[in-house]
């Protein structure tokens, strides 16, 4: 064993190197013998699990998006029959081809659930985290490969059960993705119970995953890879894992309590003297509907950062690589992301200003909300400063990463009026809120995820995706995304409520109904914009092999072959320097990889 370096990184290699190589050789010969179901289905290899997560999440994203495209028909043309699509969905959902209000509510609740818990989190954490983190820290795999497999196999049934709930009598959950009681408890449909069961599975999957990520990042870093040499993406995943680990259990507890309310007749969330349809409900009472909201948002606000931090990590990697200079303010970024993680636990009740929880509480959460915007602005500023003076290559991933900056900025800045109690009273539960968080998550996070897919596709397949199709995908998506979400701010400021089945029942809704038509056509256009991506994603597999390290990147994942074999690195890599040594004066090439020894 060598002595610890000044960076706090130490070697695990030293004494083990020999046995590692032996085991690796062993494994290599053995890898070819793995039966199909071991290699592709019940795989314990972090790369295969990452791909499983990624493909499943992309399918779920498309499903969630499809639900929204249906809703957009009803919003643009309320009450108009939807031709063959209406017939296809059956008489219960769309009697006479016209969307039933209950079905609209199901679509709304499930769109949110599917996008957040089955689309973006599994893609950002399950897929990119699993595939990239062990490679970027020079590890042979995750710390607990079997736990990793279990986490995917808890996620998949959870997701499938969630989809299955649409086919249950009465359909899926329909009380919004937040499932506020008493409505959610009193809803008779079994789909709501299924929502809770499926959530318990999805939460379990995230918990297992987060334990694995933290242990992997702490214990399995390559020799010489200290805390201040980790790529920013790894820092982001590290903080994200802590958020998942500590914020999800309260929602698990809340789901159990709501299951008790629904199945065992308890009153955790049902107050005394609740009157429904003119009759007092026959329950014990004494519960608190607000309690659910506290438990739900205690998860769901850190969840916002679970959605955005990995995206920021991807953007950091892509920006450093394509500006050909080190990230500006790397340490500042790391401090900010850690501070963001801490603060995300004390802002949850800014979702509840309108519940009458009291002005003292509101003042506290208004203050913390203003504070948490500071590290977000620092991070965005660092990215912006990183562009300054760079020799920028506008590759497809870079287009998505640069677009992330203004999109996330719009999403973030429009959040401030919602975090201030006075303006939130007016804007709460309007389309303004929808516009705000979608700017953060859709053209924000999803653009970053696209950047990640284009950036790491050569790592996973050895092939480059087609740049022309990539640029078509980007520009059309960029146009449509803004066509969808920008008008929502105007709708919200005009007072349009976010959960209306028919916006034209109110005069103020009729006055701005034309915006709904613009939004809906943009949404359907966004679907068309994804077709070049889907084609590109599969057809690029047939392209000629790309060179190793096609982006001339400096981080450790490019030390492994593309795609990496089982065990990732032929020999355990050693790290010599910080992650983004681009355009170092005196160097012959414009990048100096972390893993390249001194000449």
């Amino acid at each position: 064993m060598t002595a610890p370096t000044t960076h706090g990184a130490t070697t695990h290699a030293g004494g083990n190197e020999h046995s590692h190589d032996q085991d690796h050789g062993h494994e290599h010969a053995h890898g070819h013998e793995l039966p199909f179901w071991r290699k592709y289905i019940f795989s314990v290899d972090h790369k295969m699990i990452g791909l499983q997560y990624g493909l499943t999440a992309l399918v779920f994203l498309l499903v969630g998006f499809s639900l929204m495209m249906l809703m957009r028909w009803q919003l643009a043309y309320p009450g108009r029959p939807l031709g063959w699509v209406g017939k296809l969905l059956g008489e219960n959902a769309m009697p006479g081809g016209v969307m039933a209000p209950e079905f609209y509510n199901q679509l709304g609740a499930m769109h949110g659930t599917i996008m957040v818990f089955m689309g973006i989190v599994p893609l950002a954490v399950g897929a990119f985290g699993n595939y990239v983190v062990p490679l970027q820290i020079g590890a042979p795999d995750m710390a607990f490969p079997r736990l990793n497999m279990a986490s995917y196999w808890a996620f998949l049934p959870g997701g499938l059960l969630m989809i299955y709930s649409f086919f249950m009598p009465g359909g899926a959950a329909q009380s919004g993705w937040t499932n506020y009681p008493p409505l959610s408890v009193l809803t008779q449909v079994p789909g709501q119970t299924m929502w809770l069961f499926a959530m318990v599975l999805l939460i379990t999957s995230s918990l297992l995953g987060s334990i694995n990520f933290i242990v992997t990042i702490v214990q399995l870093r390559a020799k010489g890879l200290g805390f201040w040499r980790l790529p920013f993406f790894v820092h982001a995943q590290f903080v994200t894992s802590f958020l998942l680990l500590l914020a999800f259990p309260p929602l698990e507890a809340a789901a159990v309590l709501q299951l008790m309310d629904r199945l065992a007749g308890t009153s955790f969330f049902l107050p005394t003297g609740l009157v429904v349809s003119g009759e007092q409900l026959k329950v014990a009472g004494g519960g608190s509907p607000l309690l659910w909201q506290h438990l739900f948002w205690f998860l769901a606000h850190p969840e916002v950062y679970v959605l955005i931090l990995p995206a920021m990590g991807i953007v950091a990697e892509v920006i450093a690589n394509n500006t050909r200079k080190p990230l500006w303010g790397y340490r500042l970024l790391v401090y900010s992301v850690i501070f963001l993680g801490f603060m995300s636990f004390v802002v949850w009740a800014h979702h509840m200003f309108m519940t009458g929880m009291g002005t003292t509480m509101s003042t506290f959460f208004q203050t913390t909300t203003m504070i948490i915007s500071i590290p977000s602005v620092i991070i965005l500023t660092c990215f912006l400063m990183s562009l300054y003076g760079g020799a920028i290559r506008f590759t497809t991933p870079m287009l998505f990463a640069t677009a992330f900056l203004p999109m996330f900025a719009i999403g973030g800045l429009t959040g401030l009026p919602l975090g201030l109690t006075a303006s939130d009273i007016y804007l709460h539960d309007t389309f303004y809120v929808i516009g705000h968080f979608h700017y953060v998550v859709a053209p924000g996070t999803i653009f970053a995820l696209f950047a990640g897919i284009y950036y790491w596709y050569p790592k996973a397949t050895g092939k480059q995706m087609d740049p022309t199709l990539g640029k078509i995908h980007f520009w059309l998506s960029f146009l449509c995304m803004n066509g969808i979400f920008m008008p929502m701010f105007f709708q919200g400021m005009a007072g349009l409520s976010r959960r209306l089945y028919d916006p034209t029942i109110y005069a103020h809704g009729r006055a701005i109904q034309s915006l709904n038509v613009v939004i809906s056509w943009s949404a359907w256009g966004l679907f068309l914009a994804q077709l070049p991506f889907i084609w590109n994603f599969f057809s690029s597999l047939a392209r000629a092999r790309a060179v190793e390290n096609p982006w001339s990147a400096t981080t450790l994942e490019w030390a492994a072959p593309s795609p990496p074999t089982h065990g990732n690195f032929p020999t355990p890599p050693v790290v010599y320097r910080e992650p983004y040594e681009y355009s170092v004066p005196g160097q012959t090439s414009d990048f100096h990889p972390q893993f390249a020894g001194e000449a």
Partner: protein
Amino acid sequence: MAEASPYAADALIPHTVEPHPVTGIPNGKLGIWLFLASEVMLFGALFSTYVVIRTTAPHWPPEGGLSSEILNVPLATVNTAVLITSSITMVLSWASLKMQNLPRFRLWLGSTIALAFVFLVIKYFEYTHKFELGHYPSHDNFYAVYFTLTGLHGVHVIGGIIVNTFLLTAGSRMWATEPERFTNRIENAGLYWHFVELVWIFLFPSLYLL
């Protein structure tokens, strides 16, 4: 071993046995501590729920009287002693492995499992007595809290029984090939088991006595 196991990935991973020089512990121990951190958040949320519901109730228990009159304090006291004893036997099983004494390990881990069963049997009698009186979780929020919190704790006890039974039977084959790793597994299972006991130490006074 590597060829036989379809999970041969294990063989590549550093620090499954030897501690990491910075953290001073192997992977499994860090993992179990993180798992326990999430468990603290789970039971923390449940206890918070209990606090909110109890402090907003005009009287607790809502039907009048005292918690200690409604619930069976003597049985719960016995159960507390049973769980504490099982924690001790769990430590002894680990210590036996440290002293290379496999038969003694089997004896102590077997006792731990047996005591966990005793706990569940006593709990079963407590539950059925409540049901005989017609006191289901829906009766009022006192019973809702009582059944939900002790029920989830019971699920954790069952989880402990499953893990310990595996380690006593099929899992103990690892002792022949990787004794140190197996000993660490017993230590980690023990950490979990002590946590389950600790939750009961909080549940007992706050549900039965206060």
